[in-house]
């Protein structure tokens, strides 16, 4: 079941085509990574999903139905370009944004208090936004994004400007949201967090979707037949194997070796080859990181 689906979305800005027949499918309850180099069209796609701009052609489905104006209350969006009214009090600001999401005054107040306590910023309720540190403002923005309990959350570069402690806090909150069954679209350049958080991704490059699928599947598809061995020897000699060795680090008790398997060779053969000469302590096929997949796809 797909919670968000875009079908052949096209968006043209005078000379520049920002999105060219972009179709993505975001499974319900998943964390979906929207990746791509700067200027690829990610933000434009997000703006179309959040109904900030309209596509020239194509359609967006939410929970199987065409996206409508009222649906924006089901969406929580944390834009990359985010800010707050500097002269407004922090609490008033959170209340204002919550009420614009259609919450009643009482309900908004209740939720704002709850989240402010949770994020430990209750003392700042009556301070002006301009007195806050950047990380503190980010917390307020994060709260404003999720305060109306939306089913779909869209975070555009949520970790920029956060220190490691707060990054971890946000990550944990995102995992909690996922556990509650929310669908999350995460647009980021931070590939480590993609591997840690995302179930599926779509990679957009030059206005088109160039990769889509689960993180494991994509890494698997991009594997380079590289195998890692930990051999219990301190005198590794490649001459005996006649393989392409990519790296070779000798320690006192063992040696870590990375080898490329020739295409025609079965991988049981490779193991056999190794076993004949050395004792194997560990063996693993090396999958490319998302970072490598990203760079490889984009620079192709």
């Amino acid at each position, binding site marked *: 079941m797909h919670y968000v689906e875009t079908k052949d979305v096209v968006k043209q*800005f*005078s000379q520049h085509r920002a999105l060219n027949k972009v179709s993505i499918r975001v499974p319900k309850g998943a964390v979906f990574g929207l990746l791509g180099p700067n200027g690829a069209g990610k933000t434009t796609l997000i*703006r179309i999903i*959040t109904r*900030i*701009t*309209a*596509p*020239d052609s194509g359609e967006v489905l939410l929970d199987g139905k065409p996206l409508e104006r009222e649906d*924006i*209350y089901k*969406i929580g*969006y*944390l*834009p990359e*370009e*985010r*800010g*707050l*009214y*500097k*002269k*407004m009090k922090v609490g008033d600001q959170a209340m*204002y*944004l919550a*009420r*614009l*999401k*259609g919450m009643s005054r009482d309900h908004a107040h209740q939720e704002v208090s709850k989240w402010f306590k949770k994020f430990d910023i209750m003392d700042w309720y009556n301070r002006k936004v301009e007195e806050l540190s950047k990380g503190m403002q980010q917390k307020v*923005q994060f709260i*404003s994004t999720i305060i109306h309990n939306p089913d779909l959350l869209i975070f555009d570069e949520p970790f920029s400007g956060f220190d490691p402690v707060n990054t971890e806090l946000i990550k944990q909150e995102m995992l909690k949201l996922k556990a509650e069954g929310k669908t999350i679209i995460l647009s980021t350049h931070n590939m480590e967090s993609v591997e840690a958080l995302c179930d599926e991704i779509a990679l957009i490059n030059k206005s088109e979707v160039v990769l889509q699928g689960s993180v494991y599947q994509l890494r698997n598809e991009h594997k380079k037949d590289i195998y890692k061995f930990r051999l219990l020897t301190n005198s590794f000699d490649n001459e005996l194997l006649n393989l392409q060795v990519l790296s070779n680090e000798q320690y006192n008790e063992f040696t870590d070796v990375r080898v490329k398997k020739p295409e025609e060779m079965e991988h049981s053969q490779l193991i056999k080859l190794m076993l004949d000469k050395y004792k194997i302590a560990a063996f693993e096929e090396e999958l490319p990181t998302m970072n490598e997949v990203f760079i490889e796809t984009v620079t192709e």
Partner: protein
Amino acid sequence: MDALKIIISREYISRVTKKSFILLTILMPFLFTALIFVPYWLSTIQDSEERKIVVIDNSGFYAPEFKSTENYTFEIVGDANISDQQSRLGKDLYAILQITDDLSKDPKAVTFLSEKQAPLDLLSSIERTLSEKVSEQKLEALSHSDNVDSKTIDQVKQIIESGSRISLSTMKWGKGGSISETSTVVASIVGGVFTVLIYMFIMIYGAMVMQAVMEEKRSRIVEVMISSVKPVYMLIGKIVGIGLVGITQLVFWGIMIGILFIGATAFFTNPEQAGQMAAVGGSMATEGFDIEGALASIMTVNWFEIIFFFLIYFIGGFIMFASIFATIGSAVDNEEDTQQFMTPITLLMLFAFYAGFYSINNPDGPLAFWGSLIPITSPIVMMVRLPFGVPLWEKLLSVVLLYGSFILTSIMAAKIYRVGILMYGKKPSIKEIIKWMKYK
């Protein structure tokens, strides 16, 4: 609609609760009233010092004419030794008025001697007293000559007394045949004041809208906002919220200035004060500054109509300019880039302002007529014309044109605004801005 209400109330409340706004709103009416009444009040303050003036009248004709007032006492001495009197100067004596001969024969036979420069009102009062007496003497002499009959003399006397006091009272011929008294001076002043007022308010509050839009864009809150509300709501919310702030200030000022004026007028026109004013004699009363008369003509101005149209034109003009200003604010990233777009708007406003001012001299001329119809200038120029009376069809046409064009500019503004607020980086050209309107 709820979202719109929430936005309007935030825009409104965040501005009217600002300390600077409250201070300015409360202080201005006092400042304005003070500016008008304090100089007047200062001029009526009694000078408690009594000044003695010795009159040495060798002819004997003129001395009895001088009547002492609160400030000046005239002491008449006959044929006194002038040097004795001179020694008193600067002690208990303020001045010596010496008349050595019959002034009807020798007009230069009078000298005024004082230690300090004498005030103008004293000198003019002495001159007036003397010349009245001299004219009387001359007429008297004339009546004794044989070939003039005494009736003619009486008539001449009357002419001299009443003939020179003419003031043109202008009346306005109403449609129903009613004649009302008007004052061109008052109409010009009222027109001028309202022109300046509407120009200032449109400029100040229009610029406030632009600042607010740029502030939102710069602080990057726009995208957070438009993920929950339509961009056009943000635009309307801002214009309406800030417009209401302007109206609040205007209404408050109107009421306060009204109250203060009535209070101040009552204070200055009560009998006691009036008596004191008469006692001052001299310049004020004679130069013709007649505050009661002025107030009476102020009351003849069609205040209700002017204030009604002021609000109508303020709303129309403000929305039109505010939506243009908002467009500019949404299209650029920083203050410097506004200049290119602001210059033509400022020039138009200035043109309207001057057109308004020159229309005071000819409120029914072609400049005033066209200026008060063309939507960009009409809110300003029409203010000049209203106190002079404008035909209904002109008012209606002008209002319809203004409101029609503000609807047009608002629609254009909304189209540009929703694209502009999300555009960062390079300053767009006019051509690009026009293209934005076509974006879906």
